[in-house]
């Protein structure tokens, strides 16, 4: 059963300490902190949608390249071997460690892919004045999937592995490793330029009738 929204949409509760307070109107670049526990409640980003969209398009291209080409190779006494990002998970699966293989596949390939894909869908849908309902659904699952997207952790792991192996064989970093290195910074930039609250304020509500009950003024100004 849907809850009733409050007549005043500027009233919020701090997610860290639950204190009720009024959210001031923020100019681009400004942020608001909780009156009691001092945690940041919201940051208003400048030109968020366009910047994040540009970054996300770049991220999707890098993601595809990173998963299509070899990540690291090895040369020892005239023999060569190489592996891709997915190759690591595949090897675990074939060696009988399916549970860890699935975890690696999920955190290194599936979750980052969903993260970028969801973000692309959210941003394209939000180009409209009143983003459709599915934008809200993607946005709701975006946070949950991001926790499990661990490209930066994987890169650190790969670098450690690379140096370990370098003791007894010649290691050859693949193109994918450099691409993933760039992707980490782009994902970090997406996270810092994205303003979910801006989209929540415009998106079509799950319970459409209650939306009309709340502050019709915002509808006009948007």
């Amino acid at each position: 059963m849907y809850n009733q929204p409050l007549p005043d949409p500027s009233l919020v509760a701090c997610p860290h300490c639950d204190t009720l307070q009024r959210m001031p109107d923020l100019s681009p670049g400004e942020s608001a902190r909780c009156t009691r526990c001092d945690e940041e409640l919201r940051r208003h980003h400048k030109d968020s949608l366009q910047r994040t969209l540009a970054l996300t398009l770049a991220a999707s291209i890098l993601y595809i390249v990173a998963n299509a080409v070899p990540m690291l190779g090895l040369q020892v006494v005239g023999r060569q071997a190489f592996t891709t990002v997915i190759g690591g998970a595949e090897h675990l699966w074939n060696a009988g460690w399916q549970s860890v293989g699935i975890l690696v596949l999920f955190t290194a390939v599936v979750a980052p892919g969903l993260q970028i894909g969801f973000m692309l869908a959210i941003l394209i849908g939000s180009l409209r004045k009143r983003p459709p309902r599915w934008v809200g659904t993607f946005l709701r699952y975006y946070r949950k999937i991001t926790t499990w997207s661990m490209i930066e952790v994987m890169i650190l792991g790969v670098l450690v592995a690379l140096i370990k192996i370098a003791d007894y064989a010649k290691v050859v970093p693949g193109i994918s490793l450099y691409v993933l290195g760039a992707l980490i910074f782009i994902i970090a930039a997406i996270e810092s330029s994205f303003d979910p609250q801006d989209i929540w304020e415009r998106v079509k509500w799950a319970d459409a009738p209650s939306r009309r009950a709340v502050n019709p003024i915002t509808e006009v100004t948007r």
Partner: protein
Amino acid sequence: MSAAVSTALQQGLHSCRTCGLLSRPAHGEVEGRCPRCDEALAFRKPAALQRTWAFLIAAAVCYIPANVLPVLTTTTAAGAESDTILQGVILLWSPTGWPLSLIVLIASIMIPIGKIIALAFLLISVQQGSIKSNEQRVRLYGMVEFIGRWSMVDVFVDTYTASLVQLQPLMAVEPSAGLVFFAAVVVLTMLAAQSFDPRLIWDPESEQEVRHA
């Protein structure tokens, strides 16, 4: 104006942790759905303490085999040799390699045990109704949530070492049972952190403020 604050809980309001909307549940209901984003709502995460304890105890149990059992087995012409996480750290330790050794030591041994201790401390302090250093405790929780993912480093190290070093009959590296337990520790501590509700840290003080007001 009085210094006393009012919380969403005291006003009978649900605060959506996904989209931030405040809303009022139907009369007499304790649960509901967010009219904006469709998320299931409750005043606090359901059974937060029990669920966090359950994941945490499971993680603590897995932490032992994760450190005692070998995570990698290296097979060479000279025979097979198995290494635990700690042995891996020691192997990496060299005049040039020590920073990496330190990263693995921190990410694989210190972070998991630190997370288990920090969450246990938060749970116990909440259950005792502590009102001391609330800001610091919320910050500690934020750190546990933020840092947790980095424990996965060793899983990736072992995965890519094993998938690359397949030079039979010269040398082959394969994962061992310890890796499964170690991966379980990482996932379980992350789930434990997600089940906890930081608003519980502030609840005892909010109640006191109401009583004094």
